[in-house]
Each structure stands twice: as structure tokens, then as C-alpha cells.
């Protein structure tokens, strides 16, 4: 019942927010949503304590027949692959609600959508039925579209529509692949069982896997399917960007591992070399594009494109170590990118710009944003994979696990890791070092030496969520066993099983 309770809480919260009597203030609505999200996080942790890491398969399973004629069952369970993602969803949605302030329009719907997304994402991670997964996968689409299109930036309509079109195509391809699987196997059983695909010819498997790869590739996103992400991030508000980068992109990588990789191991093995090259291209393109950006948010968005490529590389290599690295990368990218977006959000709120041609010297101890800048340095160090932080563990595991299988693709991806240091040091150097200024350099010494740069100070309540995330990033880097203990058995079993099947 724990999983059902976990799924019901955010939906109950959504209903409570929508039906709350009277006209509650935005801060009251925020507190209500935070209360529900705290319960959700508590239940996620309770699930983690009830979970037995020594068992490789699904646990805490619940199964109820729903629409048997359609093959749609309420079948949920958790394993070492989904548990870390459920935990990170619980944590980051709570962070998103906490950092949401000054919602001036339709706060009731805003917080309801936040809870709805969180519940849908949990549902997708915990589904054991393909159609149920698809329902949850689609369920988060409209709320996110609303969050970008209603509470986004000046160009929000364009970005939200682009997101909607891309993700709708993604959904269609995934549904098509699921239905195709039923059609080709002649079975209406949509349970998560790799057995059904074994009856398929290789050609059929490749088509279905191809559809899934493109479908999930849009969501991850992989180059050249990434086009929607930088626009969505640029126009989304900070809490939505935190959620989008930290949690929603993981739906793509999770889906690829759970359904592409696990359902079609033979076809996966055939496509693996091409996937590894695709991953390397994605990593390099994302990194090089990030270098060219002058908008801090777009830079972080492109870094996501690059860093999510590591997960595809790890999945393509399919070794126990690389798959563990994939889980680590999903979690560490979730935390690090959420931290980066949160900090960029603070910079934007205080300075009114994210332009790297304009911002300078924000580390100024008294008149700048010194703590924000310091946390930004921690975040970029983690993202660049410096030892002692989460990014190092995940990248090391991915590279170590993949290099024996795909040495060239791995080496190219390692170059991408080096490029991460390039663009993030550019960001830190331009925006945080030098003399404080929030105007473009004019060449006029008098204007550039202005003393009247007035930035509002960052209140502790604005920094605490970032401090919590940074602590998480360092803790995973220092004590990686806390995470590997949850996932190692599951990822090893997954690798052994799929290698055997292929």
C-alpha cells in the first residue's frame, strides 16, 4: 500500500488545492502544497527503508486489474533503478515549491500543477504496466505546458508550444511502440515483461526500439532532438526549470533503460555501437553549444543535453559498472542541474539579467552575491566532475564501465567532460570574477567604475534550498555507497540479464 499512498498524496494535494474553500492567499497555498510534498517525501523515504537492496527485482508490488480488455492494469512496484529517481523527485519537487515566491497570477493552479507533475512522474517511475506508464508520462505533459506558458518569460508561448509539439510526438512514438509490441506479439498483455519481445523478429524489434529511442530521445533530450529544451528552460520560471532539469528529463533516460533496453535486449545489443556514437555526439554537441551561449540559463540547458548523453553511453555499454554509473548520473545530474538553475534564478532575480556579457564581479563580498557565487563554484565543480562531488562518481563509473566496450565513444565523451570545465569556468569567470557591474563594459572608465551598483541582498531563505542541494551533491560524492547500495544489485542483475538475452 505504500506505493499507492505515495501516488495518492500528490493527487490528493492537487484536489485539495483546487477545491480549497474561499480565497486562500498564495503563501497559504504554498504552505499547503509544501505540506503535501513533505508527506510525499516522507513516504518516499519510508519506501526506501522498506526496500530490500539485496533483491534485484521489483518489490513492494501492487497489482489490480483495471481494464483487462485493454491490457491496462494498475501494476506498480519499485526496484533499484526507480527508487533513487522517486527520491529525487520527492526532494526536488519540494525544493521547487519552497523556492516559489511572489506568484502573482493563479497561484491555486500553479501549485496544483506542481503537485500533479510530481505525482505523475512518480507514477511513471513506479509503473509496471506499459500503458499505465504511458498514462502517467502523458499526464505530466499538460501541467508542464501550463507552467511554462502561463508563468514563463516574455517568449513563453513559443517555448511552451514547442515543448508541447516535441513531447506530444515523443508520446505518440512511445505509445506507437507499445501498441506495435502488442500487435506484433499478438498479445494484449502490457505488463513489463521482456518475454513477449523475444517472440519478435529482429526487424520488428529494431523498429519498435527505434520508435522508443526517438520518443525517449526527445525527452532526454539527445541531439538533434534537443531543440525544445533550451527554449523551455529560458522561458520557464526557476522552480519549473529545477523540476524540468532535475526530474522530468530523467523520465526519458528511465524510459529508455526500462523499456528500450530491458524490453529489447537483442535489438539493443545490435544498435549499441551506434547508440554509443550518438551519445558521444550528443555530449560533444551539448558541450560545444554551451560554450557559445551568453545566457546563463541556456548554457546550463545545453550542459544538460551534454550530460544526459553520458546515460545513453552507459546504457549502450551495458556493463554492471556503466549501468550503475547511469543511475548515478541521473541522480547527480538531477541535483547539480537543479542547483545550477536555482542559482541562476537567484542571479536573475537580483540583477534582472542572465547575460554573461553584462554580469561581472558578482562574487563581490559586500555588494555582490558572494554566497550564491560560492555555491555556483561548487555546482560547476561538481558538474565538471571534480573529485569529492557527485559528478565525479557518476562520470567515473560511466567512463570506467564503458571504455572497455566503446573506447572511442567513451574518450570523446571524456572530452565533453573536459569541455564542461571550459564553459562553466567561462560562466564563473565572466559573471562572478572581476569588478562588480551589471551593465555592459562601455570602454568609458568613468562609467565602468560606477559605485552605485545596487543589488538587493540574498536572504538566507533564498539560499537554504541551494545549500541543501549542494550538501547533497557533496555527500553523494563523499559517500557514494549510500546510493550504490540501493541500486547496485538491480543494475548488475539488469546487465547480466540483458547480456544473457542478447
Amino acid at each position: 500500500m505504500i506505493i499507492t499512498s505515495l501516488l495518492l498524496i500528490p493527487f490528493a494535494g492537487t484536489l485539495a488545492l483546487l477545491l480549497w474553500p474561499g480565497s486562500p492567499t498564495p503563501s497559504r497555498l504554498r504552505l499547503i502544497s509544501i505540506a503535501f510534498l513533505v508527506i510525499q517525501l516522507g513516504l518516499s523515504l519510508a519506501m526506501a527503508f522498506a526496500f530490500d537492496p539485496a533483491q534485484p527485482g521489483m518489490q513492494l508490488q501492487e497489482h489490480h486489474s483495471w481494464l483487462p480488455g485493454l491490457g491496462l492494469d494498475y501494476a506498480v512496484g519499485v526496484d533499484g533503478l526507480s527508487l533513487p529517481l522517486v527520491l529525487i523527485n520527492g526532494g526536488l519537487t519540494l525544493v521547487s515549491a519552497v523556492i516559489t515566491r511572489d506568484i502573482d497570477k493563479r497561484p491555486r493552479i500553479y501549485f496544483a500543477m506542481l503537485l500533479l507533475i510530481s505525482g505523475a512522474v512518480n507514477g511513471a517511475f513506479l509503473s509496471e504496466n506499459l500503458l499505465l506508464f504511458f498514462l502517467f508520462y502523458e499526464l505530466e505533459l499538460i501541467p508542464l505546458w501550463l507552467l511554462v506558458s502561463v508563468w514563463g518569460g516574455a517568449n513563453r508561448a513559443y517555448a511552451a508550444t514547442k515543448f508541447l509539439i516535441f513531447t506530444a510526438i515523443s508520446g505518440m512514438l512511445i505509445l506507437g511502440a507499445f501498441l506495435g509490441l502488442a500487435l506484433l506479439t499478438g498479445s494484449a498483455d502490457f505488463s513489463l515483461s521482456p518475454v513477449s519481445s523475444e517472440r519478435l523478429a529482429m526487424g520488428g524489434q529494431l523498429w519498435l526500439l527505434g520508435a522508443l529511442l526517438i520518443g525517449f530521445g526527445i525527452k532526454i533530450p539527445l541531439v538533434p532532438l534537443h531543440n525544445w529544451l533550451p527554449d523551455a528552460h529560458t522561458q520557464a520560471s526557476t522552480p519549473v526549470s529545477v523540476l524540468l532539469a532535475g526530474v522530468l528529463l530523467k523520465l526519458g533516460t528511465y524510459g529508455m533503460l526500462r523499456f528500450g533496453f530491458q524490453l529489447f535486449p537483442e535489438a539493443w545489443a545490435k544498435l549499441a555501437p551506434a547508440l554509443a556514437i550518438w551519445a558521444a555526439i550528443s555530449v560533444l554537441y551539448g558541450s560545444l553549444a554551451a560554450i557559445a551561449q551568453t545566457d546563463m540559463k541556456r548554457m546550463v540547458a545545453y550542459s544538460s543535453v551534454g550530460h544526459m548523453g553520458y546515460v545513453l553511453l552507459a546504457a549502450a555499454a551495458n556493463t554492471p559498472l556503466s549501468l550503475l554509473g547511469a543511475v548515478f548520473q541521473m541522480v547527480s545530474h538531477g541535483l547539480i542541474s537543479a542547483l545550477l538553475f536555482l542559482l541562476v534564478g537567484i542571479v536573475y532575480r537580483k540583477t534582472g539579467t542572465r547575460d554573461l556579457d553584462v554580469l561581472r564581479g558578482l562574487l563581490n563580498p559586500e555588494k555582490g552575491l558572494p554566497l550564491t557565487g560560492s555555491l555556483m563554484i561548487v555546482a560547476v565543480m561538481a558538474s565538471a566532475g571534480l573529485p569529492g562531488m557527485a559528478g565525479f562518481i557518476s562520470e567515473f563509473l560511466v567512463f570506467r564501465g564503458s571504455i572497455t566496450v566503446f573506447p572511442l565513444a567513451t574518450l570523446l565523451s571524456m572530452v565533453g567532460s573536459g569541455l564542461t570545465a571550459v564553459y562553466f569556468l567561462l560562466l564563473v569567470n565572466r559573471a562572478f570574477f572581476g569588478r562588480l557591474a551589471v551593465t555592459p563594459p562601455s570602454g568609458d572608465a568613468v562609467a565602468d567604475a560606477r559605485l552605485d551598483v545596487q543589488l538587493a541582498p540574498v536572504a538566507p531563505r533564498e539560499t537554504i534550498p541551494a545549500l541543501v542541494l549542494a550538501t547533497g551533491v557533496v555527500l553523494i560524492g563523499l559517500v557514494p555507497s549510500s546510493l550504490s547500495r540501493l541500486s547496485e544489485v538491480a543494475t548488475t542483475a539488469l546487465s547480466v540479464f540483458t547480456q544473457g538475452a542478447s
Partner: protein
Amino acid sequence: MPVISADLVHANSSVGQEELQRLLLCGESLLLDTPDHVLEVVGVLESYGEVLDAYSINLIYQAESQFLNPFPIFKYLDGDLSPAKIWRHLIHDRINFEYAEYCQKAMFWHGTGGLDAYLDSDAFAENCRRIIAAKRKRDPLLFALHPLSPGFLPELIRSAATIHALGQFWRVMSDLFLDLAKAERAGKVSTIPDVVAFIKDGLVAAAANPIHYGVSIEGEYLWVLPPEAGLSFLVDVAVPYVEAVFLRGMPFLGTVSFNAQAQQISPDQGQFSYGALYADPMPTMGAGIPPSLLMQDMYRHLPEALHQWYLVRTRGEGDIRVKICMSFQKSMFCVTNAAINGTMPHPLDCTDPAAQAANTAYAGAWAQRLASARNDCLGRVPGVA
């Protein structure tokens, strides 16, 4: 990190050279006379006076009691080695005497005026010879070290002489600034011209004070700067101090990169313009910005009225040291203003054309130097603080 040339760092000619020269020649204060400026300048100089008192006591203690001590680990304790004092020192509940040493090094390195000339004289070399001979009798380390590096101990003695002279200079300035605050409270000083005149009178009154310094070695008193050297307060110490600390200074490490090979820092020390009147207050409290130490010290001794004034501006307590630095720069312009007025060749109201020409040339030379200083703080240009 972009490389910024030296002239771009300090150049802010909000008030032009002609206007500065006009202000100096007609006896107006450089800093605009406003009630806020009076509060800032008098308040900051009062806290500066408190800090200079501690600096002065410590510098004189160092020069007299830590003379040629190879390991002066207790030099900031002024001889009080009680556990409570050591504990307060360790938890940094103390004045940053490092800043006093920083100023001394600037003065020693730029080396202008009568004091520096005396430190290079034969008479001073003879003083050193006698001091070293006395010291070597009982100190085996110095006994062994001196023949190996015969220039080392004289250089340390020169440094000690500058330390003592700066201590004597700050003794006068500390008393002067504290008296200024008392005079302001008594209603005797109420405008910026009053402040400038008060400081000028104090400087003139102390101008001829003798500067001398001796050390006691094994019961024998030996002169480092003997009275017969004829060193005096204003021309031999005050003016070199203004030259070294207010005007020339040294570029700060930290926020700006200089390419010395491309001569972005002038090879001629005389062309340096990184001093207090040119410095950018914005990076205060940043790494490698020594005046941060002084701002922190002044913050600890800030008069309540000025503290309250800062609290309702910009970030309140959050950027208070930057604001103190901005006020300090204004007050240093007042001190410079007073020094220029006090050293003007002839009275400003004289009618002799030759005297007027001399005054004009003198004021012009100063105006030229101050034109490229951070004189936007003077408030002479509307819209600039």
C-alpha cells in the same frame, strides 16, 4: 580575466583639473559642503582616530621593544602577554595591525622626503654600525648572520625607523581626529570648510615637531634617528606619508590583472597612482584588498550616529565596509585638502603677482594629480555620490 590598464582603474575625472585648481586657489573645500558629508567625514575620522591610536601605540612598541627580534611572534600584543589578550588575539577580537605595517611598507618602499634621505646617509650608516656592534655582543644569531649579509641588518633598522616615524606621525593624527570629533560635538566645527581648516591648523601646529628614535641595548641608549638629524613632523614624515599612501600606493592583488611587462604598471614609481585617493572602494573586503583591514577596524569603532546613517542606506549592515571606505575616501580628500592649504607657498589672499603665480603653479600641480583621482566622491558633479 580581462586585462585593464592602470589608468582605466582609477581614472574618474568627474571634476576637472581647472575646477580643482579653482577650488584650491579660492580656498573652497574640495569636498562639497553638505550635512551628510560632515557626518560622514567627522564620524569616519573619529573612528580612524581610535584606530590610529592603536596603530601608533603598536608601531612604537614594535620599533622599541621588538627591535631586531628575529621571531617577533608577540609583536601585536603591545607587551601584554596575559592569556586573555592572547585568546582575544587568536579569535581575532583585535585591531588589524597588519594594515599599519602595510602602510609602513608603502612608505618605506616609495621612500620620499627627508626621512628617506637620512636613512641613506653616512650618519645613519654610522648609527647602524654602533647599534649592530652593540647587538652582536649578546646575540649569537646576529653575530653569525651579519658578516654573511652585511646589508641585511641596516635594512631592518631602516624599516624599524620608518615604523617608529609612522607611529609618531599617527600619534599626532589620532589626537587631531579625536579632537575634531570633540570640536564638532561642541559646535565649533559644523561645515566641511571648518573640518578642512581644523585639520590644517592641527598639521601646521605640529609641523615642526621633532621626529627622533632611539633604542636601548643592554642598558645603553643608542640613537637611530637622532635629534641632530633635524627631522620634523610635516616635511619629513607627513608629506612622504601622503605621497606614499594617499597618492602612489600599490596596486591591489585580486580583482584586476595588470600586465607589468606591457608597462600597465609604470616602471617609474613616481608615476604610481594607486593610493587612497585613487582606489576603488567597491572590492573592499575582497581577497588581496588590504584596506579591508582598516575598514573592519573602523567598523569596530564607528560612532553610533554614523552607524545609524549607514544602516538606512543600500544594504545596511551588509555592505557597511564599502560605505565606510567611500566615506573614508571623502575624508582623505579633506586631509589632502588641508595639507595642500597648509603647504601653500603664500597666503591665498596675498596680492603680490609673483606670490600668486607661485600659488597658482602649486595648486595647478596638485590639481593635475587629483584630476585623475577618484574625485567623483567629492559630490561636485550632480548625480554622483
